[in-house]
């Protein structure tokens, strides 16, 4: 077994195991409340065909998010598919359909360069986009660069491999040894002259440049080589690359750069194969699969509760293009709070972690929970997603799940015992902006008439206000006036305020009761955030 076989087997096994694990994860969830779309079979078929052509082959949804992005994806998609089918799988596909196939013949040699070139241009556009858009740059993670690097590496190593083969006398020698029976030594010289000039091989020795020798070489070449070797000028990238590398050629040839690049190229391909089921590498498979599974739906209608497998597929279909985050309705919250889990593309990664067996804990869990809470379910990410992922559904499901393990400040308060609620929070380095609660002047005008409580609808509908709400509005104001803010923060009145502003509107002395209650909630939320960070630091 040679390097390739061993490598291929290992990569295939890794790939297969990875895929199986993924599929297992999709299907392993208990199924509940799945509803099946009621479309008829011919309607489904029509939709499937439409999706296949418009959205998978022509990347129609990608087009909605931007021309450059679409162009880049088309170039990479078609370029890479071309390479994959005609070049990488030449034995199984190309050779079978084209018995005369030789990788060094045109059009294959040309096409390989064309596809490779397309892919490279596409990748370059992608890199450009990620670097240029500030908001996207901040979202870009290791796996985004990894995909670009590996795919780019495959293509570049391929070109380098081809270029180094073009100029390699050693390769020439092997070919001569295999396919050419020289009548005398001058034949070799003649052939070398042709190959040096026409095919770009860089021989270490001086090559005759006489016309006779060249003529002879040409005919020899005609007899023995052209059946298998087109002019390397059709390798319109590799050949110029070889020319460019001409000054380095002797050194490269000496060190058998062609073999080095072969190993590099193959290794990268095997890495790509092995990495296929991991992270973003999987999206070329899952995205089309997801598009098909969703049958092109852009919305997330309530009657459409997908099966866990489809949900899993959806999670894995993310191409990490970042479009969802660029259009996210609560993006401004990310700007202020700095929690990347607010943005859908990043939250999705945490969701994967959350759904995995290891799950999330500590700060990562809190960050994910906060991101989930802040989402307003506005549907925009789902609408824009080029992969057609039903993000809305994912968020609505994960919101419920995460709130069970990571309560928000409101839930946290309600889980506490009365004594704990009295002064549950540490100090906070960030004072609230409005600073109403701490400013005694806010309560200076209070005449103690208790109108704020009297008009409060929450107190009105409470069965036993002092039991269920701990403190009433005027009591909170009085505690704050007395400088006992810590005693108010855990009071359920603060958290059960329905924000109707009646207290503030009816106050004869214009005390900003409701605004103060808002601020108290802000204070606790900030402290809990900071507290989590501090716990993480200390523990």
């Amino acid at each position: 077994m040679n390097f390739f076989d061993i490598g291929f087997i290992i990569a295939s096994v890794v790939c297969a195991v990875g895929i199986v694990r993924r599929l297992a994860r999709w299907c392993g969830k208990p199924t509940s409340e799945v509803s099946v779309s009621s479309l008829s079979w011919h309607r489904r078929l029509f939709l499937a065909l439409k999706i296949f052509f418009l959205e998978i082959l022509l990347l129609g949804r990608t087009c909605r998010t931007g021309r450059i992005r679409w162009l880049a994806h088309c170039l990479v998609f078609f370029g890479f598919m071309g390479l994959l089918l005609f070049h990488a799988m030449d034995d199984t596909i190309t050779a079978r359909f084209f018995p005369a196939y030789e990788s060094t013949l045109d059009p294959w040699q040309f096409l390989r360069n064309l596809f490779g070139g397309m892919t490279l241009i596409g990748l370059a556009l992608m890199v450009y986009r990620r670097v240029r858009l500030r908001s996207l740059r901040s979202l870009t993670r290791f796996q985004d660069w990894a995909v670009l690097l590996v795919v780019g590496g495959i293509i570049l190593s391929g070109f380098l491999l081809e270029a180094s083969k073009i100029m390699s006398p050693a390769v020439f020698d092997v070919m001569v040894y295999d396919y050419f029976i020289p009548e005398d030594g001058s034949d070799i010289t003649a052939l070398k002259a042709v190959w040096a000039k026409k095919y770009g091989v860089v021989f270490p020795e001086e090559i005759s440049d006489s016309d006779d020798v060249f003529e002879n070489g040409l005919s020899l070449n005609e007899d023995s080589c052209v059946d298998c070797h087109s002019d390397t000028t059709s390798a319109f990238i590799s050949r110029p690359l070889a020319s460019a590398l001409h000054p380095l050629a002797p050194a490269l040839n000496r060190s058998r750069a062609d073999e080095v690049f072969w190993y590099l190229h193959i290794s990268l391909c095997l890495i790509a194969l092995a990495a296929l089921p991991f992270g973003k590498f999987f999206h070329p498979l899952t995205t089309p699969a997801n598009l098909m599974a969703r049958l092109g739906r852009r919305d997330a209608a309530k009657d459409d509760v997908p099966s866990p497998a489809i949900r899993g597929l959806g999670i894995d279909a993310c191409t990490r293009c970042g479009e969802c985050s660029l259009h996210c309705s609560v993006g401004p919250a990310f700007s202020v709070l700095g929690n990347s889990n607010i943005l859908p593309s990043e939250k999705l990664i945490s969701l994967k972690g959350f759904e995995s067996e290891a799950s999330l804990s500590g700060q990562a869990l809190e960050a994910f929970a906060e991101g989930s809470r802040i989402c307003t379910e506005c549907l925009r990410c789902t609408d824009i997603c080029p992969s057609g992922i039903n993000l809305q559904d994912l968020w609505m499901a994960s919101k419920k799940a995460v709130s069970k393990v990571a309560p928000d400040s409101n839930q946290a308060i309600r889980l506490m015992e009365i004594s704990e609620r009295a002064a549950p929070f540490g100090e906070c380095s960030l004072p609230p902006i409005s600073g109403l609660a701490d400013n005694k002047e806010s309560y200076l005008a209070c005449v103690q008439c208790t109108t704020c409580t009297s008009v409060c609808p929450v107190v009105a509908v409470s069965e036993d206000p002092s039991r269920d709400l701990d403190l009433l509005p005027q009591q909170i104001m009085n505690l704050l006036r007395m400088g006992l803010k810590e005693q108010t923060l855990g009071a359920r009145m603060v958290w059960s305020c329905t924000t109707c502003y009646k207290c503030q509107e009816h106050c004869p002395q214009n005390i900003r009761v409701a605004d103060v209650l808002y601020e108290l909630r802000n204070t606790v939320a900030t402290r809990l955030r900071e507290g989590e960070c501090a716990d993480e630091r200390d523990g």
Partner: protein
Amino acid sequence: MIKDDTIYDVMVIGAGFAGMAAALFASAQGLKVVQTGATGGIDFSTGFIDLMGVHPMEEGKRWNSPWAAIDAAVKDYPKHPYALLKRDEIAEAIDTFTDFLAQNGLDYVGHSERNSRALTPAGTVKRTYRVPKTAWKGTLALESKAPTLFVDFHGLKGFSGKQLVETRKRNWPGLKTVRIQFPSGSGELYPEHMAWALADPAVREKLVAEILPHCDDVEYVGFPAILGLNDPQQVVAQLEELSGKHIFEIPTMPPSIAGPRLRAVFDRGLPVLGVRTLSQKMVTGVEKLGDGSFQFAVGSGAAASTVNAKSAILASGRFFGKGLRADRNSVSEAVFNLPVVQPGNRDEWHLHEFFDHKGHPVNMAGIEVDEQLRPLNAGQPVHDNLYAAGAILAHQDWMRMKCGAGLAIATAFKAVKAMKG
């Protein structure tokens, strides 16, 4: 800044008794009315309409006839605002006002031409001219000394049936009290919230079931004023039907429901009459335009606006209503900076004893007006189209003379009449 292009006939500044009455009377006269003012006076009222109860203050002498009391007071205080009104004007004002309340579901009753006696939550008895229909049976019970049960509730503070019994039992035998659990909700209770709960007829039934075992030997049952938000008469009627007893309400200390009921009538009734209300907004500035009309800056923040009016009625109340302001040296008027008649020095403002019958001199401070209720400066009207009404007027102590609501309504009536010419 919102600009309202309408030119109103009159701007009413204030939303207490005087402001509400002025808006009502002016709109009834076909005037285009705009009204501003924050919650205050009327929300804290007991719901009683006093006309005149005590004179002279230093003797603490109570009167059965408010008209006789007014005559006596005007004789001793020639500058008392009542001196500017004729008896039939006052009567017409009060009747128009209570008619309007009645049309909106809040009937007022009393003895014809004389004061009734009414129970307060402290257990004291005061004389007042008109009481809400839901309190009237209390007056009847008190005046006839009929056996009565006072009901109070666990969790409703500041209202003690025992206090009522103790303070009144010397001259009113057959009093008893019971403290019960309110059928809907427990812990700390507020009258307004209890009134919410009583919107549900099932709660009324439970309430009657709670009290019936204690009702055997009584004719009347008195409750704190909690019997319904805006339809107390209906609630009381149903309780009477269920219990077979006479039911009445006793006002509670603020925040009570009596004030908000009154306020609600105006909140609903005035817009129907075409009054433009700018509730919860204070006048922050005023400018007299070339044509003699006023331009007011009203409110603050997003709701700030300018309002133009041909004339104005100042009914902004005293210190709690923010019509008057006191600094360490003097009392001033908040909107027009009108001259305020006042005692010279702050140590003359108040007497040494809070409950001194004579009344604190600062209570007589206020705006002096001519016979058309136009504020005066050195004997001359400050503006010929500015009128003042209510508690802001000088030479009256509504708290000691027991003339708050009546004076407010009557002077508002007169101001509108003077304006119409």
